[in-house]
Protein backbone atom coordinates (compact mmCIF):
# COMPACT_ATOMS: atom_id res chain seq x y z
CA UNK A 1 0.00 0.00 0.00
CA UNK A 2 1.51 3.35 -0.94
CA UNK A 3 1.45 6.35 1.37
CA UNK A 4 -1.54 8.02 -0.28
CA UNK A 5 -3.62 4.84 -0.09
CA UNK A 6 -2.63 4.38 3.51
CA UNK A 7 -3.69 7.94 4.35
CA UNK A 8 -6.95 7.53 2.51
CA UNK A 9 -7.75 4.26 4.27
CA UNK A 10 -6.88 5.72 7.66
CA UNK A 11 -8.93 8.84 7.01
CA UNK A 12 -12.09 7.15 5.80
CA UNK A 13 -11.92 4.56 8.56
CA UNK A 14 -11.58 7.32 11.19
CA UNK A 15 -14.43 9.35 9.71
CA UNK A 16 -16.69 6.28 9.59
CA UNK A 17 -15.90 5.60 13.24
CA UNK A 18 -16.73 9.15 14.28
CA UNK A 19 -19.73 9.96 12.07
CA UNK A 20 -22.29 9.84 14.87
CA UNK A 21 -20.10 11.85 17.22
CA UNK A 22 -19.33 14.45 14.54
CA UNK A 23 -22.99 14.83 13.70
CA UNK A 24 -23.93 14.93 17.38
CA UNK A 25 -21.40 17.63 18.15
CA UNK A 26 -22.42 19.61 15.05
CA UNK A 27 -26.04 19.34 16.08
CA UNK A 28 -25.19 20.69 19.53
CA UNK A 29 -23.42 23.65 18.00
CA UNK A 30 -25.83 24.52 15.17
CA UNK A 31 -29.04 23.32 16.81
CA UNK A 32 -30.59 22.23 13.53
CA UNK A 33 -30.03 19.13 11.47
CA UNK A 34 -29.59 20.71 8.02
CA UNK A 35 -26.84 23.05 9.27
CA UNK A 36 -25.30 20.21 11.24
CA UNK A 37 -25.05 18.03 8.12
CA UNK A 38 -23.48 20.87 6.12
CA UNK A 39 -21.05 21.55 8.92
CA UNK A 40 -19.92 17.92 9.12
CA UNK A 41 -19.54 17.65 5.35
CA UNK A 42 -17.49 20.85 5.19
CA UNK A 43 -15.33 19.75 8.13
CA UNK A 44 -14.58 16.36 6.61
CA UNK A 45 -13.57 18.04 3.36
CA UNK A 46 -11.31 20.53 5.16
CA UNK A 47 -9.87 17.81 7.39
CA UNK A 48 -8.69 15.76 4.42
CA UNK A 49 -6.70 18.65 3.03
CA UNK A 50 -5.29 19.48 6.47
CA UNK A 51 -4.31 15.90 7.25
CA UNK A 52 -0.61 16.78 7.51
CA UNK A 53 -1.45 18.88 10.60
CA UNK A 54 -2.52 15.73 12.42
CA UNK A 55 0.68 14.83 14.26
CA UNK A 56 -0.59 11.94 16.35
CA UNK A 57 -3.12 9.65 14.66
CA UNK A 58 -4.57 8.56 17.99
CA UNK A 59 -5.75 12.16 18.45
CA UNK A 60 -7.87 12.10 15.29
CA UNK A 61 -11.12 12.66 17.15
CA UNK A 62 -10.00 15.81 19.01
CA UNK A 63 -8.27 17.06 15.90
CA UNK A 64 -11.32 16.80 13.64
CA UNK A 65 -13.56 18.24 16.38
CA UNK A 66 -11.34 21.30 16.42
CA UNK A 67 -11.65 21.64 12.64
CA UNK A 68 -15.41 21.33 12.99
CA UNK A 69 -15.41 24.08 15.58
CA UNK A 70 -13.42 26.41 13.32
CA UNK A 71 -15.77 25.70 10.40
CA UNK A 72 -18.70 26.44 12.68
CA UNK A 73 -17.30 29.80 13.75
CA UNK A 74 -16.54 30.94 10.21
CA UNK A 75 -19.93 29.74 8.93
CA UNK A 76 -21.66 31.72 11.67
CA UNK A 77 -19.65 34.81 10.82
CA UNK A 78 -20.64 34.54 7.17
CA UNK A 79 -24.28 34.11 8.03
CA UNK A 80 -24.07 37.01 10.51
CA UNK A 81 -26.84 35.65 12.63
CA UNK A 82 -28.48 38.32 14.72
CA UNK A 83 -26.99 38.34 18.21
CA UNK A 84 -30.39 37.98 19.78
CA UNK A 85 -30.89 34.68 17.99
CA UNK A 86 -27.60 33.09 18.65
CA UNK A 87 -25.04 34.09 21.24
CA UNK A 88 -22.18 32.13 19.82
CA UNK A 89 -19.63 34.20 21.69
CA UNK A 90 -21.14 32.89 24.86
CA UNK A 91 -20.12 29.39 23.84
CA UNK A 92 -16.47 30.24 23.81
CA UNK A 93 -16.35 32.63 26.72
CA UNK A 94 -14.55 31.79 29.92
CA UNK A 95 -17.16 31.65 32.64
CA UNK A 96 -14.83 31.71 35.60
CA UNK A 97 -15.48 29.40 38.46
CA UNK A 98 -18.47 31.10 40.02
CA UNK A 99 -19.35 31.09 43.65
CA UNK A 100 -19.02 27.59 45.01
CA UNK A 101 -21.60 28.03 47.73
CA UNK A 102 -24.21 28.98 45.14
CA UNK A 103 -23.61 25.64 43.43
CA UNK A 104 -25.00 23.84 46.38
CA UNK A 105 -28.67 23.71 45.66
CA UNK A 106 -30.47 22.22 48.55
CA UNK A 107 -32.84 19.50 47.49
CA UNK A 108 -34.54 17.12 49.85
CA UNK A 109 -32.85 13.77 49.93
CA UNK A 110 -36.27 12.21 49.22
CA UNK A 111 -36.31 13.91 45.85
CA UNK A 112 -32.86 12.63 44.97
CA UNK A 113 -33.74 9.12 46.08
CA UNK A 114 -37.06 9.17 44.26
CA UNK A 115 -35.37 10.33 41.09
CA UNK A 116 -32.69 7.70 41.18
CA UNK A 117 -35.08 4.86 41.92
CA UNK A 118 -34.75 2.29 39.10
CA UNK A 119 -38.32 1.09 39.69
CA UNK A 120 -39.64 4.46 38.68
CA UNK A 121 -39.45 3.37 35.00
CA UNK A 122 -43.08 4.20 34.12
CA UNK A 123 -42.22 7.86 34.39
CA UNK A 124 -39.15 7.63 32.22
CA UNK A 125 -40.77 8.93 29.04
CA UNK A 126 -42.23 11.93 30.78
CA UNK A 127 -38.95 12.52 32.52
CA UNK A 128 -37.15 12.31 29.19
CA UNK A 129 -39.26 15.20 27.92
CA UNK A 130 -38.79 17.13 31.13
CA UNK A 131 -35.05 16.71 30.94
CA UNK A 132 -34.94 17.91 27.36
CA UNK A 133 -36.98 20.97 28.19
CA UNK A 134 -34.79 21.65 31.24
CA UNK A 135 -31.71 21.25 29.03
CA UNK A 136 -33.12 23.68 26.46
CA UNK A 137 -33.61 26.26 29.20
CA UNK A 138 -29.95 26.18 30.27
CA UNK A 139 -27.70 29.08 29.25
CA UNK A 140 -26.08 28.10 25.99
CA UNK A 141 -22.52 27.58 27.15
CA UNK A 142 -23.67 25.22 29.91
CA UNK A 143 -26.11 23.36 27.69
CA UNK A 144 -23.54 22.70 24.98
CA UNK A 145 -20.91 21.59 27.47
CA UNK A 146 -23.25 19.17 29.23
CA UNK A 147 -24.47 17.70 25.94
CA UNK A 148 -20.97 17.31 24.50
CA UNK A 149 -19.79 15.43 27.56
CA UNK A 150 -22.78 13.53 28.86
CA UNK A 151 -24.51 12.73 25.57
CA UNK A 152 -21.79 12.71 22.91
CA UNK A 153 -19.23 11.20 25.27
CA UNK A 154 -16.40 13.70 24.83
CA UNK A 155 -13.70 13.92 27.47
CA UNK A 156 -13.18 17.28 29.19
CA UNK A 157 -10.07 17.83 27.06
CA UNK A 158 -11.95 17.10 23.85
CA UNK A 159 -14.80 19.40 24.86
CA UNK A 160 -12.24 22.09 25.70
CA UNK A 161 -10.81 21.71 22.19
CA UNK A 162 -14.22 21.93 20.56
CA UNK A 163 -15.22 24.96 22.60
CA UNK A 164 -11.81 26.60 22.55
CA UNK A 165 -11.80 27.14 26.31
CA UNK A 166 -9.46 25.79 29.02
CA UNK A 167 -10.30 22.37 30.51
CA UNK A 168 -10.90 24.12 33.85
CA UNK A 169 -13.72 26.08 32.26
CA UNK A 170 -15.28 22.86 30.99
CA UNK A 171 -15.09 21.49 34.50
CA UNK A 172 -16.77 24.50 36.05
CA UNK A 173 -19.43 24.60 33.32
CA UNK A 174 -20.26 20.98 34.03
CA UNK A 175 -20.71 21.71 37.71
CA UNK A 176 -22.87 24.74 37.14
CA UNK A 177 -24.80 23.28 34.22
CA UNK A 178 -25.62 20.07 36.03
CA UNK A 179 -26.53 21.91 39.21
CA UNK A 180 -28.89 24.19 37.28
CA UNK A 181 -30.35 21.14 35.58
CA UNK A 182 -31.09 19.50 38.90
CA UNK A 183 -32.61 22.67 40.22
CA UNK A 184 -34.87 22.89 37.15
CA UNK A 185 -36.00 19.28 37.53
CA UNK A 186 -36.75 19.87 41.16
CA UNK A 187 -38.79 22.93 40.15
CA UNK A 188 -40.64 20.82 37.54
CA UNK A 189 -41.46 18.27 40.22
CA UNK A 190 -42.73 20.97 42.55
CA UNK A 191 -44.80 22.64 39.82
CA UNK A 192 -46.33 19.32 38.86
CA UNK A 193 -47.26 18.86 42.49
CA UNK A 194 -45.33 15.62 42.57
CA UNK A 195 -45.27 14.05 45.95
CA UNK A 196 -41.84 12.58 46.13
CA UNK A 197 -41.71 12.32 49.87
CA UNK A 198 -44.31 9.59 50.37
CA UNK A 199 -45.52 11.77 53.18
CA UNK A 200 -49.00 13.22 52.56
CA UNK A 201 -48.37 15.97 55.11
CA UNK A 202 -45.64 17.36 52.93
CA UNK A 203 -47.82 17.65 49.82
CA UNK A 204 -48.01 21.13 48.44
CA UNK A 205 -51.52 22.49 48.53
Amino acid at each position, binding site marked *: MNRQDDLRAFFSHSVEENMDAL*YGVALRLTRNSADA*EDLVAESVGKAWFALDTLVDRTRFRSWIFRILRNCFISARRKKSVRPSEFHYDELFRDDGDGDLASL*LVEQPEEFLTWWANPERTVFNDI*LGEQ*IMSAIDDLPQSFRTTVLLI*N*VEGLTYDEAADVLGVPAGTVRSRM*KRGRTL*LQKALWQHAMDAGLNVTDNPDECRT
Partner: protein
Amino acid sequence: MTSATDKTEPAEIGCLEAIEALYAYLDGEVNDPQALARIEHHLGHCRSCFSRTEMERALTAQLRKSAKSRAPAALQARLRSIMDKF
Protein backbone atom coordinates in the same frame (compact mmCIF):
# COMPACT_ATOMS: atom_id res chain seq x y z
CA MET B 1 3.88 7.10 63.91
CA THR B 2 1.89 9.65 61.99
CA SER B 3 2.35 7.96 58.64
CA ALA B 4 0.42 4.88 59.73
CA THR B 5 -2.90 6.50 58.79
CA ASP B 6 -1.72 7.37 55.28
CA LYS B 7 -2.84 4.18 53.61
CA THR B 8 -5.72 3.08 55.78
CA GLU B 9 -8.25 5.92 55.77
CA PRO B 10 -8.38 8.63 53.12
CA ALA B 11 -8.45 12.19 54.45
CA GLU B 12 -11.95 13.33 55.36
CA ILE B 13 -13.61 15.78 53.03
CA GLY B 14 -16.86 17.68 53.51
CA CYS B 15 -20.01 17.70 51.38
CA LEU B 16 -18.99 20.90 49.65
CA GLU B 17 -15.71 19.42 48.52
CA ALA B 18 -17.38 16.15 47.49
CA ILE B 19 -19.98 17.91 45.36
CA GLU B 20 -17.34 20.20 43.95
CA ALA B 21 -15.61 17.10 42.56
CA LEU B 22 -18.74 15.04 41.90
CA TYR B 23 -19.25 15.71 38.21
CA ALA B 24 -15.61 15.22 37.31
CA TYR B 25 -15.77 12.00 39.32
CA LEU B 26 -18.88 10.74 37.50
CA ASP B 27 -17.44 11.72 34.13
CA GLY B 28 -14.30 9.68 34.81
CA GLU B 29 -12.12 12.76 34.96
CA VAL B 30 -10.62 12.29 38.44
CA ASN B 31 -7.35 10.52 37.81
CA ASP B 32 -5.51 11.12 41.06
CA PRO B 33 -5.97 7.91 43.13
CA GLN B 34 -5.92 9.80 46.42
CA ALA B 35 -8.54 12.29 45.30
CA LEU B 36 -10.61 9.36 44.03
CA ALA B 37 -10.30 7.58 47.38
CA ARG B 38 -11.35 10.72 49.27
CA ILE B 39 -14.48 11.12 47.14
CA GLU B 40 -15.45 7.47 47.36
CA HIS B 41 -14.86 7.45 51.09
CA HIS B 42 -17.19 10.42 51.49
CA LEU B 43 -19.87 8.87 49.29
CA GLY B 44 -19.64 5.70 51.33
CA HIS B 45 -20.29 7.61 54.53
CA CYS B 46 -22.63 10.43 53.55
CA ARG B 47 -26.21 9.46 52.76
CA SER B 48 -27.05 12.82 51.21
CA CYS B 49 -24.10 12.91 48.80
CA PHE B 50 -24.65 9.24 47.97
CA SER B 51 -28.28 9.98 46.99
CA ARG B 52 -27.19 12.93 44.94
CA THR B 53 -24.62 10.80 43.13
CA GLU B 54 -27.20 8.14 42.31
CA MET B 55 -29.56 10.83 41.08
CA GLU B 56 -26.85 12.28 38.86
CA ARG B 57 -26.07 8.86 37.40
CA ALA B 58 -29.76 8.25 36.63
CA LEU B 59 -30.01 11.71 35.10
CA THR B 60 -27.02 11.14 32.83
CA ALA B 61 -28.39 7.76 31.69
CA GLN B 62 -31.77 9.32 30.91
CA LEU B 63 -30.17 12.28 29.18
CA ARG B 64 -28.14 10.01 26.95
CA LYS B 65 -31.21 7.95 26.10
CA SER B 66 -33.29 11.01 25.24
CA ALA B 67 -30.73 13.03 23.35
CA LYS B 68 -28.30 10.65 21.65
CA SER B 69 -28.04 11.41 17.95
CA ARG B 70 -27.08 9.25 14.99
CA ALA B 71 -25.73 10.57 11.72
CA PRO B 72 -28.67 10.51 9.25
CA ALA B 73 -28.32 8.09 6.31
CA ALA B 74 -28.23 11.01 3.87
CA LEU B 75 -25.23 12.49 5.67
CA GLN B 76 -23.45 9.14 5.74
CA ALA B 77 -23.91 8.79 1.98
CA ARG B 78 -22.79 12.37 1.44
CA LEU B 79 -19.59 11.88 3.45
CA ARG B 80 -18.77 8.65 1.61
CA SER B 81 -19.20 10.34 -1.73
CA ILE B 82 -16.94 13.22 -0.60
CA MET B 83 -14.29 10.76 0.52
CA ASP B 84 -14.54 8.75 -2.72
CA LYS B 85 -13.25 11.80 -4.57
CA PHE B 86 -10.07 12.10 -2.48
